[in-house]
């Protein structure tokens, strides 16, 4: 299946500098995910099929990766910087995401699940 035809994907980054938006509420349609050794917070993200959602990723310690092969998504997750990924899930189910930048002894357990409802 050619997901490029099914998923609107936008990857963007913005240097946040200083007080990045970890504490502020996510904007409508945005879900914030924080990466740290060796977990994503939250590690389960629920979205609805057919509705655009933007994942806002940042790290609190070091560079990590965010990879979700089922949607063809992978980006570096940087300390003190927000990276955005927008997608419109086209089918329901549970889809794994994980860190793909080796980050230490717990790296192999650093993963989460995108749950697409509906």
């Amino acid at each position, binding site marked *: 299946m050619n997901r490029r035809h099914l998923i609107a994907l936008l990857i963007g980054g913005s240097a946040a500098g200083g007080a990045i938006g970890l504490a502020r509420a996510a904007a409508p349609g945005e879900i914030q995910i924080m990466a740290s050794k060796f977990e994503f917070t939250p590690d389960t993200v629920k979205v609805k099929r057919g509705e655009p959602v933007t994942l806002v990723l940042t790290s609190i310690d070091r560079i990590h990766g965010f990879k979700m092969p089922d949607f063809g998504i992978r980006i570096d997750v940087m300390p003190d910087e927000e990276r955005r990924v927008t997608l419109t899930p086209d089918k329901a189910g549970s889809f794994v995401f994980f860190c793909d930048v*080796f980050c230490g002894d717990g790296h192999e357990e650093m993963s989460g699940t995108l749950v697409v409802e509906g």
Partner: protein
Amino acid sequence: MQNTDRRDFLKLAGLAGVTFTAGLFPGLEVSAQMAPDFHFVQISDTHWGYKGPANPDAEHTLEKAIVTVNGLAKKPDFIVFTGDLTHTTEDGAERRARMKRFKEIVSALNVKDVRFMPGEHDASLDKGAAFKEFFGATHYTFDHKGVHFIALDNVSDPGARLGDEQLAWLAADLKQRRPDDRIVVLTHRPLFDLVPSWDWTTADGAKAIDLLMPYRNVVVFYGHIHQEHHHMTGHIAHHAAKSLIFPQATPGTQPRRPPPPPFDASLAPLGTRDVSVSSTVTMTELPVTRT
């Protein structure tokens, strides 16, 4: 050497394991002038320094495997370690201490032509710096009895990339080869997308496979997944080896890669591999200790 001969001497040595013969060099025209057969041993994923329930005998497994390899009735021409020599640590001094101790232990091998390659546990946190201090280059080539060996590094980049520079180096090396040359590629991670959702892949491995594809007699030996596994990309065979520390789950059996299963010695989950090379390849999986 014929396959039956290989089995015979392994039985005589009490080391017979599972033998797997593959059409290693499908494009090869066997000639009387072909260089004599040889064999080498692949050892992978020793993870020296690991402590945990996945291997209650972790401090002794490597030494036992060395006894097994030293006991082969016919000494291998060389031995190659395909990565994760040591278990990862964020302490650079401890990383070097583990590499030093690992090197001391494997010096007991009675074969002195030993080649080392890094895994992500050795190299990804410092881009291969400590590995190079102890073992030299992380990617290189060598030739043995008419076979060209290429060791590729897909771990020094923490994002599991070979990188454009190494790919250009590979392309330049391959330009010197003839289409029917016998080529053996050694690497740590699978070059192909074995299970992308478990990160069992190389980010730009497909580019390496594309470069290798014009050559008719190519085989890849790798580690990383801690189990025997065989896969074809076109005419190129990829063979994963067992580890010497703990087994991993069968590829793709769960959405997320699960932790190592409980250690069960009766399943013979650990071992090394003898590879006999002629017009074909014969792989014999060797258990850790004599049976």
